[in-house]
């Protein structure tokens, strides 16, 4: 479904990687590994359609990525995309609205429960700790079970053991339901997957 052919990416004129190719089918997990600066984030941003590749193509269901692809894709980058002035609940409501997910308040509360942050629902995001912010951002995973492809950039950074277990359980459930997942991580977090692969980017 997701297909990458002879992909090459550059950052500021520096070639990060070239001739990268892989294909991901339903239930597929792809771990992207590599040293700092080897292009993991750039690869994910390219898959999300934010960065243009220097060469090669990203294809979704056989055609170049477009609006339809964005409807079936969730990208969570390093930035939590939380507004300090809004409560956790309002932040998640906004995130679902712009992703065109029709989501009720009770569903958002369930998502918060999934990440163990129910009591933070009405707190402005400004008062959250680093780990809590990350949990709030990752609560979108629980809202996006119907979204086919998840692109997660360092989802486990700044999380404690409890949160890591919760997030990897969400990922495993997504894969078991036929979803696809591409993630970058420095830690080797076990995720149960029907079809798990990894690629190593050479800096």
């Amino acid at each position, binding site marked *: 479904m997701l297909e990458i052919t002879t992909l090459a990416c550059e950052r500021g004129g520096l070639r990060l990687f070239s001739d990268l190719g892989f294909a991901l089918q339903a239930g597929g997990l792809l771990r992207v590994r590599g040293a700092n600066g080897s292009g993991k984030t750039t690869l994910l941003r390219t898959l*999300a*359609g*934010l*960065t*243009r590749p220097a060469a090669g193509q990203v294809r979704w269901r056989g055609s170049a990525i477009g*609006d339809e692809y*964005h*409807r079936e*894709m969730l*990208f969570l*980058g*390093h*930035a*939590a*995309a*939380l*507004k*300090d*002035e*809004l409560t956790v609940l*309002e932040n998640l409501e*906004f*995130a679902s*609205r*712009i*992703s*065109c997910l029709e989501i009720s308040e009770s569903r958002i509360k369930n998502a918060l429960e999934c990440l163990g942050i129910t009591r933070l629902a009405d707190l402005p995001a400004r008062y959250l700790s680093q780990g809590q912010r990350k949990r709030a951002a990752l609560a979108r995973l629980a809202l996006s079970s119907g979204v086919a492809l998840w692109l997660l950039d360092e989802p486990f950074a700044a999380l404690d053991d409890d949160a890591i277990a919760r997030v990897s359980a969400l990922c495993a459930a997504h894969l078991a339901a036929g979803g696809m997942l591409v993630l970058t991580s420095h830690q080797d977090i076990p995720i149960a997957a029907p079809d798990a692969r990894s690629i190593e980017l050479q800096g």
Partner: protein
Amino acid sequence: MLQVFSFIVRRELRLALRRKGDALNVLVFFVVVASLFPLGVGPEPNQLRAMAAGVVWIAALLAAVLSLPRLFAADYADGTLEQMLVAPQPLIVVVLAKAAAHWLLTGLPLALAAPLIGLQYDLPAGALGVLLASLLIGTPVLSLLGAAGAALTLGVRGGGALLGLLVLPLFVPVLVFGAGAVTATLIGINPSAHLSLLGAFLAVSSLIGPWAACAALRVALD
């Protein structure tokens, strides 16, 4: 699509309500700048009447330039803009909604405050009405073209000063026809020609501004 538009506008207004300082600063800046001129040039009524429209309009342009760097900066810094770009709805809806909210928070209050400023310049009632009308038609242009400028200078060091250099020349037609409408009224000419041209300029900039802003945002986040 209309739902997303109105949702983003309401969210921007809610955000502004929770940090009231930003919008209030712009309005106070406008009032202070426009009130400094009578103190500087002296209380000669004929002179004040002649310069009123130009001063109010220039103060409005400067206030807009003061507020524009913040249009996308916060969303850029916290990753919201990134999410808006990967979202399925067209980016132009986001840009239009943000420009609309910017006008509601800066352009509209300025326009409504302008007749009070006009009183300081001894403008007659008819001219006050035309001043209000010219600002109501003209200030959306500042938000629409300003959005393109704000997107182009996003993430640039010292972007605020650059933004001023970039957009102020684009605002010249608005200044000429906006202030011209009031001056025309003062010398007894019907201002509708000026206001129509201002409206035409609004129509053109509502096509060009958001489109350019979208392209610039995609480059800024590449």
